[in-house]
């Protein structure tokens, strides 16, 4: 609780700005209100300060140089034109670059369609690290070789057994499931078998194992 008698003129002057901001507690506000009733000098300071705030907060107090708004608008318009010119310069480059990319892509697609090698998917892997004399099985009319017992062997009643080296030499590629432990190291190690797995294996095996072998 503020002692009313303790609110002298000096205290009022120190707090008068906070008072006008509504930034004094209720007790101090009551004490200052009481003081303003009895002290003409402080009442004059209060009303004068209030006048200052009201006058200067009026928009008319802000004078701008003649033509300020017009020049600002023009500068913004120039900036917008520059931005669009920069974009059009970029887009002028982008059109031929995009066209070139399309043509190149089209040519590569055409080559791949006419080539004897099927397209490689991102999952296609080389038959690195597979022990050459490891026994594997292949089924009739399939192009993938498996470890015996692999769940992805089709036509299990028509399988034959051979070595991994023989399977690869005959054009078979490793099953991505049962041979995974050998294939995962391919990025780090050199080829053992020296034979690149035929691309397209994953298209049969990875994406749709149910139809991997026909």
């Amino acid at each position, binding site marked *: 609780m503020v002692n009313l008698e303790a609110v002298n003129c*000096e205290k009022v*002057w*120190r707090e*008068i*700005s*906070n008072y*006008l*901001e509504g*930034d004094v507690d209720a007790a101090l506000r009551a004490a200052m209100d009481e003081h303003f009733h009895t002290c*003409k*000098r402080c*009442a*004059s*300071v209060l*009303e*004068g*300060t209030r*006048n*200052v*705030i*009201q*006058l*200067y*907060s*009026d*928009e*008319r*107090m*802000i*004078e*701008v*140089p003649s033509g*300020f*708004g017009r*020049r*600002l*608008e023009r*500068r*913004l*318009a120039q*900036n*917008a034109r520059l*931005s669009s010119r920069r974009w059009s310069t970029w887009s002028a480059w982008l059109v031929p670059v995009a066209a070139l990319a399309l043509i190149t892509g089209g040519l590569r697609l055409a080559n791949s369609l006419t080539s004897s090698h099927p397209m490689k998917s991102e999952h296609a892997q080389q038959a690195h690290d597979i022990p050459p004399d490891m026994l594997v099985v292949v089924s009739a009319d399939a192009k993938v070789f498996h470890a015996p017992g692999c769940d992805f062997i089709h036509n299990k009643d028509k399988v034959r057994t051979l070595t991994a080296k023989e399977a690869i030499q005959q054009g078979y590629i490793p099953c991505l499931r049962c041979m995974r432990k050998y294939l995962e190291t391919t990025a780090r190690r050199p080829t053992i078998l020296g034979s690149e797995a035929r691309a397209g294996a994953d298209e049969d095996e990875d994406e749709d194992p149910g139809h991997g072998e026909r």
Partner: protein
Amino acid sequence: MAEPNAVLNKPEQQPTREQELIARVQRGESELFYELVQPYERRVYAAALAILRNETDAEDVAQEAVLKAFANIRQFRAEARFSTWLIQITVNEALMRRRRERTVTMEAIDERREEESDYAPRDFADWREIPSEALERKEVRQKLAQALASLDRKYREVFVLRDMEQLNIQETAEALGISIASVKTRLLRARLMLRDLLAGGWEQGWFSRLPFEKGTKPW
């Protein structure tokens, strides 16, 4: 006192024209940006002038600030007031310009001493309210502008941002990079000094054609 359920019962508000303009400019309709800033262009200029005290520099910085606001409009978030955001960008630009020009070294030296002592009003004449019509007179506006220009930089900046630009105390502190306590101290002194400066002007007849009672001052 507000109704307890006033917020809950408040109907969903339509976006204001300003909110609509902000959203459209953010989506790429850059030609609408001037319409968005136009209501505040005077305040942008005044903020720059308060810091730079040079009309040419103030206009240049005001333009730069508006361009910067345009370049960063996608970063503006609806929880802030657009005018405050714009003024803060302007203040920042103006402060950077002033730092580059290194014109304030001497002013900073006596800052601490001035803020330590209390300011005592000098004029205690009778008062009455000045009608806002007084501002229609160019002479009155000029006298008010001169009084403001005569303040030290640190008082003028705080007064302009708080009382003319309507930033709150915290926003003023953030814009100028000073403490809230410093804003309050400087604001008090700025207001009291302006009051004294303008009360003194009464003796010189600034408001002589205003309808004040004989023997009284505007404050």
